[in-house]
């Protein structure tokens, strides 16, 4: 049985799609809801719990999507930037460790 993941849904508009195409990741988007595209960034249960603790406004939608929702845009933008820079979706370990090391300064840092 595949391991259960607890995704963060990054909703994809044209601008994001272009960046994903350039990173060779456009194929990882799923089409849901009448053609709307989403990129699901996986989290383990441990990462999910950490995210919910660090960003208290977020919630795990147990009823409908089974995903981590309501993260602020700047947080999701940063996760998206990491995905594009690393050309992979498995970026949450790096995201969490960088945020834990640098705190709020992380939001204004460029992804190297």
């Amino acid at each position: 049985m595949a391991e259960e993941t607890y995704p963060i849904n990054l909703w994809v508009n044209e601008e994001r799609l272009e960046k994903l195409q350039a990173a060779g990741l456009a194929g990882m988007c799923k089409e849901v809801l009448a053609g709307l595209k989403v990129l699901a960034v996986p989290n383990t249960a441990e990462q999910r719990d950490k995210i919910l603790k660090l960003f208290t406004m977020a919630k795990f939608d147990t009823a409908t999507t089974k995903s981590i929702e309501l993260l602020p845009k700047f947080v999701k933008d940063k996760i998206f930037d990491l995905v594009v820079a690393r050309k992979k979706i498995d970026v949450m370990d790096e995201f969490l460790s960088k945020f834990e090391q640098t705190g709020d300064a992380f939001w204004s840092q460029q992804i190297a």
Partner: protein
Amino acid sequence: MENIGHGGKEIVERILPKDAAIKRVNEMRAAKAKELDVRLQIATEVIDIAYGFFSPLEGFMTKADVDAVCDNMTLADGKTVWAIPIVFDMSDEDLKKSGIKQNDEVLLTYTSNPFAVFEVSDIFTLDKQDMAQKVYGTTDEKHPGVKRTYQYQDKFIGGKITLLNPPKINEPFTRFWLTPKQMRERFKEKGWEMIINHQTRNVPHTGHEWLMKGAYLGAYGSMMVDKPRGGILVNAIIGSKREGDYIDEAIILCQEAQGKHGYFRDDIFLTTCSLWDMRYAGPREAVFHACLRTNLGCTHHMFGRDHAGVGSYYDPYDAHRIFDKLPKGSLNITPIFNLDWWFCPVCDEVTYMGVCGHKDKKASFSGTMIRSIIQDGVKPPRRIFRPEVFDMIMECAEKYGFGDAFVTEDYLKRRNPVFTIEPLK
């Protein structure tokens, strides 16, 4: 008798005309009546009581009422269904300092302006944990209703309320504020015999739209179609906010946008607001909503999946089942129960769980999911979210939300209040 509200009682407005109110304030001040400035939470419920939103309540509950509500889900008469305690709390220290005692008439003020007369008939204490368990089914302080209960001060005062100084409802809420009597007048003008209430604290997506349309079609039944004999009342709950909620202005204006842009005919659709701090009491709150909307003159009330619930405290259909436990005839409103609506990629439409046979292909969407999409700055497809509603959200974010459509700390500090109490003169 006209304007019969919940419990079979006539809706009575407990409001003094302006001249009489000024005279009363002068008399009370001359007699050195005690004065008490109340917080927003209490002021909101004073208004609700005075206009009959909470009919047959004439004031804040006495201990007998609170006990009956908690134990039997009725008022102290043992007959009138009531699900949520409506209480006036005060700290022991403030109570002693104020010298307020039973049978006093207290002049309530709000933002230091004369507001209402409070006839104190009972002063009591409550076991807050017991109340939380009975009303919310949990004592977990993470539940917002339980949290509110624990935040109550240690003394409670019961007694009748008379409003002296009506609220000034501020923009953009002014045109959406109708009292129970005004609402009933409006229904008469529209010729509606059937009024279906849609309870909301959200910006609408097409799942909500279809819930309303489904309820309308279902309830219209065999009434003649020569002219619209029924309509949908969107009664948005405006009250205390949590960070991340939609801002109130976006809720009400986006609801209105559905009618303005023809997703509902103008003559079958009305958007209004009521002042209420959601308790998220799930099934009990569903019963409370039924009583509230009976007072507004509604004949039907929609109850969806997990109505007024929060987290996983309630089964998604507890708020339906509770109506089976109420004595027959105790509510004068017909509940309309809804299953889920979802997007079906095979039917290529928003459709109803009770009719669509592609359950394994369904794409469920929730308010939370739509919020997530909007927060990402992505415009959802029109079959999921109406473009005019999306544009209105963006407009509200700029105009009222300090750049954000969702409640932030900044919004809570700087927003224009929904109502103000001005000097009485």
